[in-house]
């Protein structure tokens, strides 16, 4: 018996019935099935691989920090999932549709063997596609964008991680295809139906939101046009789906139906665990935080507001209350995190805070991302109890696009605490003092000059600030004015004379706690252009150009403001790359507190005074350090202002990102092991983040998160 079956693959073209037999070796059943699967899947695989590689190229060409780039990053694994579903459906449903299953079934191999060969081939193709896509990145790096080794490593880890998800998609598609229409009908009934209901409910919610909010006619027209478009698109999709499933298309349409089924399965397989995971994982205690944003500690140091993001379909973020004593976190929002701000303002006792919450949550993030004009602009002024996280609304803010033109915009984020139970906020032409428990309000209306103000650029207040709260605005004619308010005074109590002839655009940065001094930034017009710092006496209206003052002294050149007033209102925290010190308001001289030969990149994040002003925290980075190699080059020191003695408190081998005082005795440190890539802000999702509480001496530390 001849064993030369191999010859059949290369028949000699000698006309009909020509010579067939050539020497060769017959392959095994496994190889034959692998060859058959490869031949059947290769076109789809190649097409999807090309698409994935195109996405990789697009990622590399997209601007490094653009939203488009982040979206494209997510597109690539999505394509992998689509590839898994399409290959799976094609392998199984395709065999059933063409009834070649009966031919293959008659071969002397078990059905189980054929099934696993199919799965193996598709899984192999997926794996190869993923590696090729990942490995294709250096090939397209000609655009000059660097790509660090770490990123490759992370990418391959990501491949490994997502491969399981792809196999899940593949298996589901295969099972659905293998079991035929019964399974599809079940899936449609059990999953597609509720999805449709949820989607319709969501659209209904948006519809009523649009009706309820007083949108402008133009904005409302855009919304209703969107409803009509989405409704039509849904209808068309449903009709297409119905036709594809009930009709028996031939040729190309058969492939369309198969692809639609595959994509459908993939969406279901991807969406259901995502939605379930979202609710299960993040409903109560948040999952491992991935991207911490600056903390906002309460005055007593017990709580801190923080914000972090996590990747779930797309980048989401949320605001949390962190209890530093027991590491408990409370999620303030689930859906409308985009509208929350972590820079809430704490009450003097540190038990609650006020914040502004945008109502743009009514729009799905995808809508507002791609259709920014659909944003309503309305929101709510809220306060929340730090212990419970319960949010209460102080003021519902109507849509900004619907109100009549006004010289003074409604700026509800200009708000502060008057005392532990009274909140002050700007509304219309005045300041409202509102008791959060009783709801009682007292309005201080602006006087004529204040109403003429072009824009209120700052709003700072506390009981200590001269017994009132203060606002600042610059006027049309170039002047500026401060206004002081008290709840027991019906009229604005202080209006300062114009204090600068050509003020230009300016903003209030800080007011000293004794209410005597204000610090402003202003921008000179061209050709002198640039930001300048002004010190203004609220008592006399006298101004001092701090930058000019500093540059006049040779020893103080390069010194700049890196913090606000000291708690005793006697100085301003200043420094340069190697020096940190206090600039006295009385003597207008710089007094050195700490210096480092290694150098320090000084900004408000890494140099701050404790609440009492007795201690200074400074974090230093080597001068040559940069984002690509910061790890191990950091050192945080606390300096006693009185004795000017410094001692290290945090020498993190694992990195550092932010420190905040928790009272005078403890520090909250956000530690992150940075990876060596300049694109830290774009994809820092797999880093080792942790939050620590360290005592002032650096002798003890405890991990708070995660």
């Amino acid at each position, binding site marked *: 018996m001849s064993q030369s079956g191999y010859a059949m693959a290369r028949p000699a073209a000698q006309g009909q019935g020509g010579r067939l037999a050539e020497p060769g070796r017959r392959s095994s059943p496994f190889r034959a099935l692998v060859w058959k699967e490869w031949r059947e899947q290769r076109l789809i695989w190649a097409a999807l691989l090309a698409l994935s590689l195109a996405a990789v190229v697009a990622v590399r060409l997209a601007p490094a920090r653009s939203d488009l780039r982040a979206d494209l990053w997510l597109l690539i694994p999505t394509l992998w999932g689509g590839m898994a579903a399409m290959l799976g459906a094609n392998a199984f449903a395709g065999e059933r549709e063409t009834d070649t299953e009966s031919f293959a079934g008659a071969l*002397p191999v078990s059905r189980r063997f054929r099934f696993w060969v199919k799965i193996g081939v598709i899984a192999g193709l997926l794996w190869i596609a993923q590696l090729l896509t990942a490995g294709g990145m250096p090939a397209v790096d000609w655009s000059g964008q660097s790509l660090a080794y770490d990123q490759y490593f992370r990418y391959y880890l990501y491949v490994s991680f997502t491969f399981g998800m792809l196999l899940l998609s593949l298996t589901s598609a295969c099972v659905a295809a293998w079991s035929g229409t019964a399974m599809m009908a079940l899936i449609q009934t059990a999953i597609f139906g509720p999805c449709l209901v949820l989607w319709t409910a969501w659209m209904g919610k948006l519809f009523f939101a649009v009706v309820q909010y007083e949108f402008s006619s133009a904005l409302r027209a855009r919304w209703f046009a969107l409803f009509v478009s989405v409704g039509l698109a849904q209808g068309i999709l449903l009709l297409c789906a119905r036709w594809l499933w009930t009709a028996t298309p031939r040729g190309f349409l058969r492939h369309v139906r198969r692809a639609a089924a595959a994509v459908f399965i993939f969406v279901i397989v991807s969406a259901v665990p995502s939605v379930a995971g979202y609710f299960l994982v993040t409903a109560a205690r948040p999952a491992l935080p991935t991207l911490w944003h600056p903390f906002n500690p309460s005055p007593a140091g017990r709580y801190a507001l923080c914000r972090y993001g996590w990747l779930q379909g797309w980048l989401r973020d949320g605001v949390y209350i962190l209890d530093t004593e027991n590491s408990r976190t409370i999620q303030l929002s689930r859906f409308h995190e985009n509208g929350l701000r972590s820079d809430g303002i704490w009450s003097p006792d540190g038990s609650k805070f006020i914040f502004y919450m945008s109502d743009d949550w009514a729009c799905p993030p995808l809508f507002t991302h791609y259709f920014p004009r659909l944003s309503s602009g309305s929101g709510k002024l809220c306060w929340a109890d730090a212990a419970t996280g319960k949010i209460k609304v102080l003021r519902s803010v109507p849509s900004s696009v619907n109100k009549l033109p006004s010289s003074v915009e409604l700026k509800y984020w200009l708000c502060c605490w008057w005392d532990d139970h009274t909140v002050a906020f700007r509304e219309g032409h005045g300041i409202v003092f509102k008791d959060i428990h009783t709801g009682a309000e007292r309005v201080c209306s602006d006087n004529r000059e204040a109403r003429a103000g072009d824009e209120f650029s700052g709003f700072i207040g506390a009981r200590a600030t001269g017994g009132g709260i203060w606002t600042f605005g610059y006027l049309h004619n170039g002047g500026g004015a401060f206004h002081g308010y008290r709840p027991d005074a019906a009229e604005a109590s202080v209006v300062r004379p114009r204090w600068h002839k050509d003020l230009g655009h300016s903003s209030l940065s800080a007011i000293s706690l004794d209410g005597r001094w204000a610090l402003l930034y202003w921008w000179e017009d061209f050709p002198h252009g640039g930001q300048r710092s002004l010190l203004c006496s609220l008592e006399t209206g006298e101004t001092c150009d701090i930058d000019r003052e500093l540059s006049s002294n040779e020893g103080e050149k390069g010194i700049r403001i890196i913090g606000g007033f000291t708690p005793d209102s006697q100085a301003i925290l200043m420094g340069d790359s190697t020096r940190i010190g206090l600039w006295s308001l009385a003597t207008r001289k710089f007094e050195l507190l700490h210096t480092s030969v290694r150098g320090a990149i000084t900004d408000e994040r890494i140099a701050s005074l404790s609440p009492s002003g007795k201690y200074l925290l400074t974090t230093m980075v080597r001068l040559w350090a940069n984002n690509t190699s910061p790890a191990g080059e950091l050192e945080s020191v606390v300096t006693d202002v009185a004795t000017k003695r410094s001692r290290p408190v945090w020498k993190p081998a694992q990195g550092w990102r932010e420190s905040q005082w928790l009272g005078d005795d403890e520090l909250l440190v956000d530690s992150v092991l940075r990876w060596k890539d300049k694109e830290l802000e774009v994809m820092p999702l797999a880093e080792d983040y942790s939050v620590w509480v360290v005592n002032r001496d650096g002798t003890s530390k405890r991990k708070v998160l995660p």
Partner: protein
Amino acid sequence: MDDAVIRIEKLTKRYGKQTAVSEVSLEVPPGKIFALMGRNGAGKSSLIRMLLGLTPITSGGATVLGFDSAKQHVAIRARVGYVPEAHHMYRWMTIAEVARFTASFYPTWNEKSCADLIRKFDLDPSKRIRELSRGMVAKVALTLALAHEPRLLVLDEPTDGLDAVVRKEFLESIVSVAADEGRTVLISSHLLQDIERVADRVALMEESRIGLVEDTDTLKARFRELKITFTNGAPTAFNMPGVLSLHKEPREWLMVFEKFGPETIPQLQSSLPGAQIVTRDMTLEEIFVALVGKPAGESAADERKRA
């Protein structure tokens, strides 16, 4: 029959509440062309699929070439040449590719035999399956079924959808293969003229059961149609054993005998004096209609539709 190639005992197949094959017992002797005949939906294909392990057996048992159909179906399929009802091969493959692909699964694949068959059937190995006519595809299927030199060839409605010329040619090939190499052939068909041409022995399946198993020649000899003409009018009463059906006209009767023998004519002449009797051999299809009452190609669904 100890050396039976196929032995079936009380084999049953149910799809939900519907019974496709009901307690069928059967033996197929070696070296014969054994035909399963019956209407569409009678259960022929289900029976064959159970024998080859292509569908699970509900109850009962069967052995093919000594292998258990329920447990050793891979071994059975490796030794049986199977031509399914519809020849759904991979349309993108060439004849050569499909031959090489199939060869990988059969240790007994005979390359020379395959090449000979392709030559004999006048097939072009470089042509893709999708370019072939139905008759050519049927020939490819037969080639694939024969090239591994099976002891048993199972053909499930192999000529369905083929035109008369191709059918004749295809059946001649089967006969020649069976005759030349002494193979056993199990063929199912509702086209009884095809079966009549080739079958040594037939089994009639009706409503999921085997109604009759007999050698074709014996069966044809046993059944006879008689045309009886009366010159003085037909009698009002008539009773005689062995009559399967009787169609009465005023002066003429058409009678089918299922146990026709040499004594039948003298008995009739004595019972019906003066009647003129003419006998005629019956085709397999006529015997089938006489037994079942409907044409073989008509399914139960057709019957309901007609009603």
